[in-house]
């Protein structure tokens, strides 16, 4: 065994400092909030290394989006504009990103995308193409040193001063793992929507806007998008409600929502919400959906009736003030993050809750309707 202290190889070539690149996301001209969040997180990483923050945005007729990206923290915005990029499609978008990265004299140090249905579709293809590391669904990002000691590959032993720390929950959220990919730039990560904090928009911020070429090939058109349907919310003020009463599959049918509406009516500034499953079943319109592909809400009180608490639902509501969950299954995942759990049939529990709240309002008090022991 050689003494590694003496003969330590030079590992500085592995992940030298470089740009931080955010791959932005818009759907039909609607700039996605996760992109602004990534610019906030990316700005911190770039400043830590003393490097510029860049952003690549793809689409067609993007209007003021590039300028807005600058106002939210980008130093330079690269714009790929083509009718073929109007809606997201894996292969054309992949082609533009790969060509763009290939055209650079040095790869960015870090490349970030959102953990959205688009980001999680695109990022793995880019990482596989460049054979570089990608960490999914991060909740924290940082830059820091890493000392590699494993002797499996002696050429890699050494101190890496500027690694991307990609931190994410693992094993069903009970552990946090710090994942590194220091062997190669770009080091890639996707981050969960709603987690990173965007900077305040600064209309005076200056930056450069650079168009980039789009050269698609025949094989990029093997898949076509026939229709993109976005059910933009109108009328339901979920994001502004103080109290949300939400229902899931455990309600047993659309009638369950009548009861939830009656419960919601007992509260000031309240709204009714739902899980995706019951929206898909047509029990209630999409505008009421909370979660990864619905709305992110943060009410003071969230009552979840017959909702299992799947991760895609949780990410949309876990920051609520008080979470009361009603579920007949005591092992339901929702009880892992709710504050109060009631084990029982949700329709019975909700009816009882309405009864008691009405009693409170009429001044009778809960005692009047609940027999003493």
């Amino acid at each position, binding site marked *: 065994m050689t003494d590694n202290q003496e003969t330590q190889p030079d590992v500085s070539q592995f992940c030298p400092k470089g740009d931080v690149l955010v791959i932005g996301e818009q759907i039909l001209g609607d700039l996605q909030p996760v992109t602004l969040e990534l610019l906030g997180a990316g700005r911190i990483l770039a400043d830590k290394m003393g490097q510029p923050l860049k952003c690549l945005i793809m689409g067609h007729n993007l209007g003021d989006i590039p300028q807005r990206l600058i106002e939210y923290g980008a130093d330079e915005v690269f714009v790929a504009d083509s009718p073929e990029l109007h809606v997201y*499609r894996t292969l054309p978008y992949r082609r533009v990103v790969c060509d763009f990265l290939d055209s650079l004299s040095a790869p960015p140090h870090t490349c970030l995308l959102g953990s959205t249905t688009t980001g*999680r579709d695109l990022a793995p293809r880019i990482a*596989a193409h460049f054979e570089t590391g990608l960490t999914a669904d991060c909740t924290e990002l940082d830059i820091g040193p890493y000392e590699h000691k494993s002797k499996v590959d002696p050429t890699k032993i050494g101190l890496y001063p500027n690694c991307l720390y990609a931190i994410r929950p693992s094993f069903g959220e009970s552990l946090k793992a710090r994942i590194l990919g220091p062997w190669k730039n770009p080091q890639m990560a996707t981050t969960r929507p709603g987690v990173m904090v965007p900077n305040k928009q600064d209309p005076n911020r200056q930056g450069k806007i650079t168009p980039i070429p789009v050269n698609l090939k025949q094989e990029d058109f093997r898949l076509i998008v026939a229709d993109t349907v976005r059910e933009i919310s109108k009328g339901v003020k979920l994001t502004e409600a103080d109290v949300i009463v939400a229902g899931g599959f455990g309600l047993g049918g659309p009638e369950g929502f009548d009861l939830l509406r009656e419960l919601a009516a007992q509260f000031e500034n309240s709204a009714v919400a739902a899980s*995706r*499953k019951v929206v898909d079943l047509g029990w209630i319109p999409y505008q009421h959906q909370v979660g990864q592909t619905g709305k992110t809400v943060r009410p003071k009180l969230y009552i979840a009736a017959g909702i299992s608490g799947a991760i895609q639902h949780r990410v949309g509501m876990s920051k609520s003030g008080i979470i009361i969950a009603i579920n007949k299954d005591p092992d339901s995942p929702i009880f892992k*993050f709710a504050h109060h759990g009631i084990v029982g049939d949700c329709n019975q529990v909700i009816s009882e809750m309405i009864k*008691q709240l009405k009693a409170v309002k009429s001044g009778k008090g809960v005692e009047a309707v609940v027999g003493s022991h």
Partner: protein
Amino acid sequence: MSSGLNIFVLVKQVPDQGSKAGINPDGTIDRAKAKRMLNPFDRFALQAALHAKKNYGGKVSAISMGPPPAVEILLECLEHGVDDAYLLSDRRLAASDTLATAFALFKTVAHVGKPDLVFCGLQTTDGDTAQVGPQLAERMGLPQITYCEDFSIEGNKVHGRRIIEGGYQKVVSEMPLLITVANSYHPLEYKSFRGAWRVQRLARNEEELKKYIHTVDLDLVGADPERTGLKGSPTIVAATEKVGEIGGNCRMHEGQSIDHLVKDVVKETNLAQFMTV
């Protein structure tokens, strides 16, 4: 397409986190002791593959990479009606990240044949990345439909519906194609009596079983070991840390009559503070 579709479904065996067995105090998993199961997301992929076969004709092969006990989930797939199965098992695969896994699976797929359709689960409950499917598609040079909730096939074209933020997309793709199936797809049907019986009979005869479950290693599928395992993985887990459950401890109310359960919660959370006056 008279000869029918060649359909692959990729499945992984994962630790059963519902069971307390093999969960270390620090939150990590002792894979030798943990209970094992078919990745729950792969049940939707399996159902999609079986639907494709039932509605459009063809053959389904299940493919998995993992240690020898993963044979259990391949038996389960056979019970549900897949035609044959392949297990890539090799010590040199230990510590593979998604890129290394996708590479090894790519080589295995090429060894098995030329698929028209490859189905993957949306994600695994242990890796939890949703990356292996698209990375495999990249290696194979295929188009992909991720987050696919439903699909139908007309001629050589697959019509699919995929989830996006705030809605959905309808897409049409040529085959060959890779699809990752969302958990809003139809749940896996119960195994048929015939399927279960067939597998029971097979399992009694090792020689006979080998005709249906093929175990392969890196040399056989021609995968460069340098590109798999720890060496072929661009990412490493540098540190793990136990975190408390989000939102802290849930105060459980159960076992009493409903009026009392509700009364306790109404009082403890002071629900009256949120009420209309």
